[in-house]
């Protein structure tokens, strides 16, 4: 049994300590917004926040998340009101959409660190794969999200 705090709620989960966080979220907690793409931290579809930092949950054992705050796409805002989600809708970013949870979590973490990221900051932080090639709208949406976040604060 391990205890995890996911999107503000505590869960007791009967799972082996070395189970990657991704599968705990998807199979045990049925939080399927976090996606499986590669299993080896290459694609970023499984990106979530651990204490606010973006991590690739397919290679993080559940035990490593005990006592820390786990945030998934479902917990980012609950009502699509996060500036990144609003900007994503405004720029019509998603195509197939499968990578988008991970992309949005990566972008949200970037904006927390840098309120007005440059293109170089975006290049460095946004290393997730999008096979539909939505990179250009995504870049525009990140700049827009930064604006939206500044308007709010």
């Amino acid at each position, binding site marked *: 049994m391990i205890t995890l705090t996911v999107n503000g709620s505590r869960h007791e989960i009967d799972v082996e300590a070395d189970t990657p966080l991704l599968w705990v979220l998807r*199979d045990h907690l049925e939080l399927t917004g976090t996606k499986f793409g590669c299993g080896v931290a290459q694609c970023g579809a499984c990106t979530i926040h651990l204490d606010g930092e973006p991590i690739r949950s397919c290679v993080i054992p559940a035990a490593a998340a005990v006592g820390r705050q786990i945030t998934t796409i479902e917990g980012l805002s609950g009502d699509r009101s996060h500036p990144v989600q609003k900007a994503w809708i405004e720029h019509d970013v998603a195509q197939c959409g499968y990578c988008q949870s991970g992309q949005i979590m990566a972008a949200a973490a970037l904006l927390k660190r840098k309120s007005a990221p440059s293109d170089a900051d975006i290049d460095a932080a946004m290393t997730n*794969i999008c096979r539909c090639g939505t*990179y250009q709208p995504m870049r525009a949406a990140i700049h827009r999200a930064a604006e939206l976040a500044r308007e709010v604060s």
Partner: protein
Amino acid sequence: MGAESKLTSSLPGFTRRGFVKATLSATGGLALGFHLPVLAAGPWAGDVEGAEINAWLVIEEDDTVTIRVAQSDMGQGVFTAMPMLVAEELECDWKHVRAEYASANRSLREDRVYRRMGTGGSRAVSYSRPYLQQAGASARERLIAAAAEEWGVPASECQARGSRVSHEASGRSKRYGELAAAAARIELDAEPEIRKPGEYQLLGTSLPRLDVPAKVDGSAVYGIDVRIPGMVYAAIAVCPVWEGRLKAVDASAASAMRGVKQVVKLDDAVAVVADSYWRAKKALEALAPEWDLGEHADASSEAFASRFRAALSDKGTVAEEAGDAYGALETAAKVIEADYSAPYLAHLALEPVNCTVHIQADRVDVWTGSQNPESVLTVTAEESDRPPEQVHVHSCHLGGGFGRRSRPDFVARAVAIARRVDAPVQVIYSREEDTRSGHFRPMAEFRFRAGLDAEGAPVALVNRSATHSILAGLRPEAVANGIDQSSLSWLANSPYAFAHRSIEHHLQRTHVPVWFWRAVGATQNAFALESFLDEMAHAAGHCPWQFRRSLLAERPDMIRVLDAAAEKAGWGSALPTGRGRGIALVEGFGSICAQVAEVEVSRSGEVAVKRVVSALDCGNTVNPQTIDEQVQSSVVYGLSAAFWGKVEIRDGRARYGNFDRHRVLKMAETPAMETHLVLSGGDKWGGVGEPAVPPVVPAVCNAIFAATGKRIRALPLADQDLSWS
């Protein structure tokens, strides 16, 4: 649209000849809901409480219009474009529109009411536009008729607009939601005419995609996200060498592991079923299956390439011939020759293939993201030995497709596993398994010889190609004479007017299965032909843009697209050392696409694509923003293939399985992209999901030549030494 993206369009005057008037059943009825044992709401046909005006649309009391989508959205936007085609005629307020996937089971039971449900060939709009417009127009007229009947006025005096029917003279007006039940019982004497280009109000506007909101909060249900009470998970290992078999497997160690339910043996695969995917996967890794690798365990892509290349010494089957190409080469002032090679390519859709199957006494339910729910249904019926009427396919969102999800091999295996498991089972391929058991874009070898006259004008072209036929395994009758036209796209019957030409082909086969990959044959052929045309232009001392123009005198439509790309890209303007531009043109899927790529190559040979300008003539538009997005998507997809795309076959199997060895383009490597629409209008409704993939690859290779003087004759670029001094 991206901040740096420009979308311009020009629509010259057009004349529209007669158009197809679809025949559509005017009978409708109240929707019959059926209940699914599933927790989350997916995009599949569900339980809509409302009046079904026809099979394509249901109107609820609150005016919500649910439009059924028969094609699959793998990112290309049909989940929005298809409803737009219906709503164009329906005169409903777009904010009331929601979409869901049509039921393949219903189509089977109701005389194929949803027509061809397969998605591919970039033809969703061109194929379904007439009958979807008709469905919307018919529903509109029935809503009007219902109101007219109720008010006792002639239908011709009533107007439909913004989800209301109004009768101006009497000032009466009713919402669609109030009229829908009566409209569902109306039968029209005659079907209404549908609108033509020039009359559209919704088509041609950039509406946001209907599926984006659910894709920004994790609520969109992909096949892999389906959760059913009592469901178990299966991890699968397929024989690593195609055509091999499972010989034996000792299940004892795996069976003892926590959560494992059973080990399932198939002819060519083994699966572990457990209460979570991770436990299934761990147990699968503990198995040491013994495979009978069959006859191909020594095969390699290198050996295939040698064999394909050797075939090029002979003439092969003539696919297209004009004049006397060999004679003209004899007398040409200058002859140039070159060989090109293209590798196998994997689709690498981000969602690994997966399928959930529940077999019960009187029905079989299947949840998956597929490009063809009808073939999923057929394969499931065959594999489960049930009548097709008992099979219910619930179409999920697709985490990419690119052709891979039009082949239901993974469905067949999932059903075979489900037959041996007493619970609903979700079969998930690992990334490595998805790649290695894939079906690839064929590898190909090419040989070109061209003749120029004393002025550098092209006079003759001889081309030989050797590659697989995709259709040979699908519809052998289509390849009866040794020519699979889909293998020869843009090589045979190209618009380039060589007075003397001989286009020859060698159909090859290996044990490696091949399949449709985004834009299919043109992807390898355009790389070869458009690169070789560039070689010819340089050999002739001509500008590659003007050289193509000189060969396209009969195709002013192509020249317009080519010119748009060249002009918007600033073709001919000075560039610093180490930079270069390349141009290419391809017609496919009913559309013409020209692209200019601008690259920068460091002296040590690192290539950065700085900018790609695309010009596209798809005739008319449904959603211009989607078109821009699809062109960008195609550019990124093509660049990934150009830089790193290669499935190396060694020991009979795909050598690498994951993204560490199958690199794809990322944000930092993505060029600035612009799309310019050059619309010829008329009856032309060209595809947009694929036409921009083929030209970007040769455009980049030609740009590298312009920058460095190095000619790329084999892909991927990562395998080439591009250093220069």
